[in-house]
């Protein structure tokens, strides 16, 4: 089944595209999905968390594909970028959400053209904008996520995500596979039991849960710096530890010091909150670290860009085959070479 069909069939209304690095092919993926949607007559809405669709990437100054939008599509973007677009737009709403590039405007495309997209920055605004795009008529809303803004793919806003990865991650294909697999793993962690979720929801702070279902909140400012204190409170009766916010290498190391940790479950908000060193993470996971998430993210597919802007590239077939081996349950699409799907 083609990617767009999967989205429609599951009734996913909001899909984010997360690039694991700049030039991982996120924009190509977005263009690909748009094209696919057009072929199936699906009305799409598009927005982004970073500035996108420019001819050259702001960060690396490398030629970047623009986002081509066609008549009938809905777009939410900042005013300055809208004014530079070659597409003709009917203005539907001025949202009052401001960004560095001006107020976010919602438009309907009346004549096709290339458009630059710079949407809202905060998760709350993003949620509003996605709702508005649907309100005006978008059946599927694609959110182009920036590398440092994984938060928009949080399940609170989107129904599913597509991960864009590629040669740019490393000259070593093994590393590319490893990093991609890690990202997918983080997103698709097991969901926590409903009764534990209820306890955590009530407390809504970093807490230590005992076998009687009692939650104790440690006296810490943030989880990042409170690893030692949390660790001290874990004992033989602890069954779960909930970490609100980011899980860093330092935090994980401090928790790992506790001998009971192997027996208990670490609960995090969702996969976008993991910021640990991959090797350490993999080693701990192997040694028995159990991690569950309050919210799981649907990873619909991984898209590949076998070419790195630094000039090196992988054989697209080989990369695809290897990726399929490390991610047997995930759809893998090479969007740069053609986007053919099995």
């Amino acid at each position, binding site marked *: 089944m083609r990617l767009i069909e999967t989205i429609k069939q599951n009734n996913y209304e909001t899909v984010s595209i997360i690039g694991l690095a700049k030039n991982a092919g996120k924009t190509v993926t977005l*263009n*690909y999905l748009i*094209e696919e949607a057009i072929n199936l007559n699906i009305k799409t809405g598009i927005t982004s968390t970073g500035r996108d669709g420019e001819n050259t990437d702001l960060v690396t100054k490398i030629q970047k594909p623009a986002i081509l939008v066609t008549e009938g599509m809905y777009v939410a973007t900042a*005013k300055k970028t*809208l*004014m530079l677009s*070659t597409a*003709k*737009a*009917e*203005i*539907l709403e*001025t949202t*009052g959400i401001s960004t560095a590039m001006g*107020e976010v*405007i919602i438009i*309907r495309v*009346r*004549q*096709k053209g290339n458009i630059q997209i710079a949407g809202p920055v905060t998760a709350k605004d993003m949620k509003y904008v996605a709702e508005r795009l649907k309100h005006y008529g978008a059946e599927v809303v694609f959110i182009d996520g920036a590398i440092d803004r994984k938060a928009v793919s949080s399940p609170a806003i989107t129904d599913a995500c597509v991960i864009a990865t590629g040669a740019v991650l490393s000259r070593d294909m093994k590393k590319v596979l490893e990093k991609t697999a890690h990202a997918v793993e983080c997103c698709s962690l097991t969901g926590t039991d409903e009764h534990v979720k209820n306890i955590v929801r009530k407390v809504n702070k970093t807490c230590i849960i005992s076998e009687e279902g009692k939650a104790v909140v440690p006296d810490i400012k943030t989880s990042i710096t409170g690893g030692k204190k949390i660790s001290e409170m874990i004992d033989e009766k602890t069954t779960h530890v909930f970490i609100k916010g980011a899980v860093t290498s330092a935090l994980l190391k401090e928790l790992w010091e506790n001998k009971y940790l192997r027996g208990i479950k670490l609960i995090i908000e969702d996969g976008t909150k993991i910021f640990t060193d991959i090797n350490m993470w993999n080693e701990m996971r192997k040694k028995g670290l159990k991690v569950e998430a309050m919210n799981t993210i649907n990873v619909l597919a991984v898209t590949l860009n076998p070419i790195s802007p630094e000039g090196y*590239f992988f*054989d*697209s077939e080989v990369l695809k085959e290897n990726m399929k081996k490390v991610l047997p349950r995930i759809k893998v699409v090479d969007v740069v*070479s*053609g*986007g*053919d799907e099995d």
Partner: protein
Amino acid sequence: MTENTMKNINFDYIFNEIRPITEYGIRAKQEAKPFIKGQEADLKTEFNKIRAFIESRQRRDLIDVLKHTKNIFETIHRAKSNQVLDEVELFEIKNFLILVEKIDKILRGISDTDLKLLQLTPLPQLYEELDPAHERLNTFYIYDEYSQKLKEIRNEKRQTEKTIRLLKKKIKEEIQEKYNIRLNLKNEVAISKSQKERIDELNKEVNLRVSGENYLNIIFKIKNTDEIDKLEKKYEELTYEEDDEEYKIRQNISGSIKEYSDILQKNTKTIGEIDYLIAKANYAQKTGSIEPEIINELQITIKDGRNLKLEKTLKEKHIQYVPIDLNLNKNVSCITGANMGGKTVTLRMIGQIAAMASFGMFVPCEYARLCLFEHIFISAGDNQSIEKGLSTFGAEMVNLKEAIKSSDRRCLILIDELAGGTNPKEGYAITKAVVNYLKNKDCITVLTTHYDNVANDEGIKNLQVKGLNLPDETDLSKTDNIEHVQEYMDYRLIEVKYSSDIPKDALKIAKMAGIDEEIIKDAERYL
């Protein structure tokens, strides 16, 4: 009223609670000036408008419309200075016109003569210009209907685009069929270098060109035919023409907007006024405030007056606020009575009510009748001046000087414990002299004092806090908690005619606060 006074009587808190929705309303609030003596009739009209909004069912509808109001000051200004507005700005103007029409319609539904003063001017002619297709939608686009030329350009563009698409599709299909290959969305195909023959074959194909190469593959891409190249160039030219035409259209509309800019600006101002009035109406309703009667004679009469800031604090602690009655019909009034008897609170309340009335707000009481003042002063524990390095007494004197300087005009002067921080003998003397001075001015002066004999003057009104009302003496030592004072305190004020002495509750309160019995006993000996 100085900023200091505003803070000291907690009027800043009250004014902050007035919350207009739109930026126009916020501006109207910022620019609001107090009504002063001589503007009684204007104030009356202001009150009528507020009452009309409180009483009208349409207030909700208006609030709904105001919530969608965007600030277009900048856009109007740009049009006025001959700038060509962009599509988003035109969209904003269009929406503003729709909004004005809506508000105007709602206002017409309210049959109040004073609200008729809030005149909005709908601009249907300008609206027509922004809706040439008569869609009656609140979206905006440079519609085809703006000009025949635009329509033609766009049609031709569309045709050209379609031709290009079909031509490209045809070539793609032909190539795919001819060589049995699949081209991707970018019309590219990667061929392995090992397929030498295939590469040679494709190299010869006129409609393909090599677009890239790596150590494994050669990438071929569809080449534009001369015909397509020509059409694409044409498309590009049409786009320029279209942009040109659109610019002219925007220029025309911007010109019309410029013509109407004064009316547009006036409308923003009126919307601001409406918004501010509604905010005042909302607050009046929320705080159970009423329209005060404004008179010319020097007088303040308040029935069941409440200090809003304190009332809110008490409410949070689930404590009932005791409203106060007051009748200040002489130039100078003294409030005397027990410590913790709410004298300062009452003083602030008087200031609040007078300030609220002068800012055209309803006032928190059952009934109020008062005149307008040109200035309001308060001297009460002025911390700011103390921070500047003045002592309590020094700060008081600086404040007092200001008040006295202005006392030739109609002022409300509120003084809390004048000279309480200095020696009783001189303190009394200063207080008495100030009172003597102010009692001949066209001002209302209210002072709280502990000094005996200050209020003991024919021309001065003496209001006394009823004070502690304890069941019996034994209760005192049991309670042992200063917080219980308020349970036994009767905050109401009574007018005292002939008594010169001030009730002495200080020792009782000291006892309740838990001061050593020995000290209390000893103190009683000195009385």
